[in-house]
């Protein structure tokens, strides 16, 4: 087995062109200092040395345990949060040092669908204004074309043009989520971070949105980081999948390889825990045993070892590096 530095390795699928995004050694720590004497402050290592690339027109799924840093990765890439350290190359340019003005042209090219639709829609604006503002900021669909464009976007996400006049609180959870999707698509971005973009939708509407995103990908080479807990949806939409646990990457693989031959015990546990939509298959799932570690006080060595069925003493000693096991397939585990 060869040890590859993931920051420089070809971690993208061989078929993909030059990466649109190239994330290197990304870290984001949150200080938690309230009531703690300075110097003894503890922090959360929300994202700890994460590197990956996304090719133009590629969809990369990002899955992992709750609190493992997925949202933080997404928001940091868009510079909605400043990284503690690391580099974020978009189309060859490192975004990290850019000032607000220099960042502006990239704002239109990169959009996010927020995990929490309720908190991300201004309650005092009706939907027409919410989407219209996104168009206006970037000088798109001016004048009388605007209302038509907004109506078109609402129809594309399975809502109706007359919903333009309604306010966010007058919608259902899944309808609000689709307003967030319409707003992100409005400016025709090249890259989208979808943070749980279809989690509030029934399977039929969800399929409709996934097909829409698929379509934009093939027609306009839309590139996407697709964060989700629904492993079936991730399997359907992604070219490659990244698995995170407690701020770190455990595994990266082309989608078929990840689902058919996962190499990390955490990925295996995830796949084994997916509920099956068939009451006759109701089984006694064995959820992971052991203590869920705290990101404020992560275990030494491998962060997964406290819940890992095959961990040994050795696992407490070293942070396992990401190693390539097959073309494009990387895992961070010394036991496999």
């Amino acid at each position, binding site marked *: 087995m060869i040890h590859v530095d993931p920051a420089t390795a070809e971690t993208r699928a061989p078929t993909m062109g030059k990466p649109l995004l190239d994330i290197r050694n990304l870290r984001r720590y949150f200080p*938690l200092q309230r009531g703690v004497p300075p110097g003894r402050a503890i922090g959360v290592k929300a994202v700890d040395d994460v590197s990956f690339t996304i090719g133009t027109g590629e969809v990369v799924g990002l899955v*992992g345990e*709750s609190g493992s840093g997925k949202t933080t990765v997404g928001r940091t890439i868009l510079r909605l949060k400043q990284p503690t350290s690391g580099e974020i190359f978009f189309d060859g340019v490192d975004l990290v040092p850019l000032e607000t003005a220099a960042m502006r042209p990239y704002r239109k090219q990169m959009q996010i669908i927020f995990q929490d639709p309720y908190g991300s829609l201004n309650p005092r604006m009706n939907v027409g204004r919410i989407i219209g503002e996104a168009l206006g900021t970037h000088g798109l669909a001016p004048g009388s074309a605007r209302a038509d464009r907004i109506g078109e976007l609402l129809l594309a996400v399975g809502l109706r043009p007359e919903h333009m006049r309604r306010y966010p609180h007058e919608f259902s959870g*899944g309808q609000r989520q689709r307003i967030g999707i319409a707003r992100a698509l409005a400016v025709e971005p090249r890259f989208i971070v979808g943070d749980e973009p279809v989690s*509030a939708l*029934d399977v039929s509407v969800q399929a409709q949105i*996934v097909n829409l995103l698929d379509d934009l990908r093939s027609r306009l080479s839309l590139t996407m980081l697709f964060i989700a807990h629904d492993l079936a949806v991730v399997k359907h939409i992604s070219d490659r999948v990244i698995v995170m646990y407690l701020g770190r990457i455990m595994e990266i693989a082309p989608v078929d390889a990840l689902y058919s031959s996962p190499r990390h015990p955490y990925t295996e546990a995830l796949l084994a825990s997916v509920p099956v939509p068939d009451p006759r298959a109701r089984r006694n799932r064995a959820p992971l045993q052991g203590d869920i570690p705290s990101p404020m006080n992560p275990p030494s060595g491998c962060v997964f070892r406290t819940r890992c069925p095959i961990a040994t003493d050795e696992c407490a000693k070293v942070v396992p590096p990401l190693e390539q096991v097959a073309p494009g397939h990387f895992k961070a585990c010394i036991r496999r």
Partner: protein
Amino acid sequence: MIAGNVLLDVDDLKVHFRTDEGVVRAVDGVSFHIDEGETLGVVGESGSGKSVTSLAIMRLLGTSGAMAPGGAIRFGGMDLLGMSDPEMRRIRGNAIAMIYQEPMSSLNPVHTVGRQIAEVVRLHQRLDRKAADRRAVEMLELVGIPEPARRARNYPHEMSGGMRQRVMIAMALACKPRLLIADEPTTALDVTIQAQILDLMRQLQRDIGMSILFITHDLGVIAEMADRVVVMYAGRTVEEATVDDLFVKPLMPYTMGLLDSVPRVDTAGPASGKLRTIPGNVPNALMRPLGCAFEPRCGYAMDACRRQMPVLEDTGGGHMVRCHRWGDIVRKEAG
């Protein structure tokens, strides 16, 4: 499971909203019941009235523009819609607790999560401040939040989406409710933690005989948790059956379409091509068709479906369906 003792009975519930565009008939004839110790799953189209139904049970539609609900909601023999506000406040969060669909909509951004859980506990139980704080930390631990004592001092924005969701679950379970209304309670959780939370709910159900109204789009979770399932479409109950019957022999074409759209991890081969969907869109809530609301999208539709709203009929053994064609569908499936 103590079957047969009805805890909650919702009878022909109607909730309409006055808006600038006209009256939105969000809930327009929903009926179901839940027995003691039972889990009733609720699935349905996004916007079909699931959350509004649960908010009506909680009597939390106050300032949202809703008109007085029609129909009846009975809980343990009491008439919830007719109850005074102080009476309802004693029940809400105590005998009936709810996990809301969007955690940020119900968590207070300016208080720590520990304080918010402790306050709910103190409102309903005779505990001093210290004991309530301890209970809050215990609850956080129960829902799998590591270092709960430290996390109790976090503000909601300092937590991940799934942690906030677990705070809500902790708050809802803190007073050991007789009825838990769980509106998409595990959407923000990874599947391993989801499995632990589902186990926790089942455990409490065994220990205290809690009933659960479980709303979710995840048909895998429904298959695992529910005893019976209600399917909603455009503000109405369109099918109700035991979980086995619903998955094995759905009778309403909308339910069939829904089951056909489920993406699965365990299907063979690469997941290629388009996902299946139900063609068309839900009807405008302002101008519902005269007949069956699903008719414009239904492969089984005939003339009568356009003209007349079908009633919810018992097809035998408690399998209820609102469809003119169910008899033909049964025969087709059999032959």
